[in-house]
């Protein structure tokens, strides 16, 4: 994803999409920043700013944003349609959007609270050393039918298929590695290279991930850091200044 958007004509918005966790987040940002009354959103203006902000998105990441853009345009058109003479039944086409925005704003508030709480917890360490209990039976094992079925399905999914020829070595899957890395960085702020590989990687997986990391780093989408020589390679989401 590219970082900085071209300013919209009426107002110089510098919107960095990396900062937003989705279209609702971006929309709320536009509304709150301009101190717009959320129950009376000037849809035409907001839709234009929204489209301006997402113009430079790569297509595959933009799907969620485009869906929202389409919704904004639909609401805009509905508002332009002539109302029936008796408009007591008329429902503001913006109502559903307002509800979603408020609901999302609540989620954002709770998420912030969760983040602070988790930070509190991560600053208080539990006991690190746990003595082995002497002469006790090993811990009971727990699993259920769901676990068992899931395991069967995983095995079946991972089973090698019968092949006639095995001439061509497995090709590199840089695209898959890129996707996995992006997904990981969607949840975690940084990952270790080894972690990005997942369990039991093949040589092709390692090379694919390496190429993906180097490529993403080259275009400024991820940052790389190694805290010590031969230490683990840490991949992080690119910050704005790294991307620039």
């Amino acid at each position, binding site marked *: 994803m590219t970082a900085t958007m071209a300013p919209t004509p009426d107002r110089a918005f510098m919107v960095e999409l990396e900062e937003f966790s989705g279209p609702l987040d971006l929309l709320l940002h536009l509304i709150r920043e301009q101190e717009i009354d959320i129950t009376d959103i000037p849809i035409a203006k907001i839709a234009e700013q929204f489209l301006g902000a997402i113009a430079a998105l790569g297509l595959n990441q933009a799907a*969620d944003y485009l869906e929202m853009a389409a919704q904004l345009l639909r609401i805009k058109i509905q508002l332009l349609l002539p109302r029936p003479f008796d408009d007591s039944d008329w429902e503001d086409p913006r109502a559903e959007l307002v509800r979603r925005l408020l609901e999302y704003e609540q989620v954002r508030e709770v*998420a912030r609270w969760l*983040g602070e709480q*988790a930070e509190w917890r991560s600053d208080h360490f539990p*006991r690190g050393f746990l003595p082995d209990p002497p002469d006790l039976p090993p811990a009971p094992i727990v699993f259920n039918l769901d676990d068992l079925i899931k395991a069967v399905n995983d095995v079946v999914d991972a089973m090698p298929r019968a092949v006639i020829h095995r001439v061509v070595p497995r090709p590199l899957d840089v695209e898959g590695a890129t996707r996995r890395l992006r997904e990981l960085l969607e949840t975690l*702020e940084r990952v270790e290279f080894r972690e990005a590989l997942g369990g039991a990687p093949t040589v092709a997986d390692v090379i694919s991930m390496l190429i993906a990391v180097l490529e993403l780093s080259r275009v400024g989408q991820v940052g790389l850091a190694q805290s010590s020589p031969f230490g683990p390679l840490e991949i992080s989401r690119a910050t704005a200044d790294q991307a620039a």
Partner: protein
Amino acid sequence: MQQLTRLLEAALFSASHPLSLAELAVLDPLASEDDWRAALAELRDVYDNGGHGVELAEVADGFQVLTRREFADAIAQAQIVIRPRKLSVAAMETLAIVAYRQPVSRGEIEEVRGVQADGVLRLLQERALIDVTGRGEGLGRPLLYGTTPAFLEMLGLKELTELPRAEELSVALRPPERVTPDL
């Protein structure tokens, strides 16, 4: 310290998880719940007023001894403890929805956040913060997600009711029938 408080301290130091009053009861069948509460109070007092580096915390499932905040940075920098990774905003938002709406389907989460959720859900599940808790009624019987004890532990909470309630949030949600359900 009283003998029961000493046993309490030894037990809390040996346990791999927070100890509930029920688990403590097994340690000494002669001690009542009040005795244990008194011991907990005494231990908390010793840690707080004796200038200790640890404190007694009431967390998910019970009581636990934890290091004090002020030493976290030094200990993490010396690599004695690896701090858990911070979760992204997207992950926290998804967790928030799962926590308040559970059991909740992927579709509902995507509807609230306005973005696809499969990648985030998978990673939250890998980190054991959420889990599949059942299947919904609708089309295709979608998987339903809920939070795990590890989620509470990550937050140092005892139970879900300790999450902020809808009316405590600064954002009011209208219409009222769609307000976050009471937990």
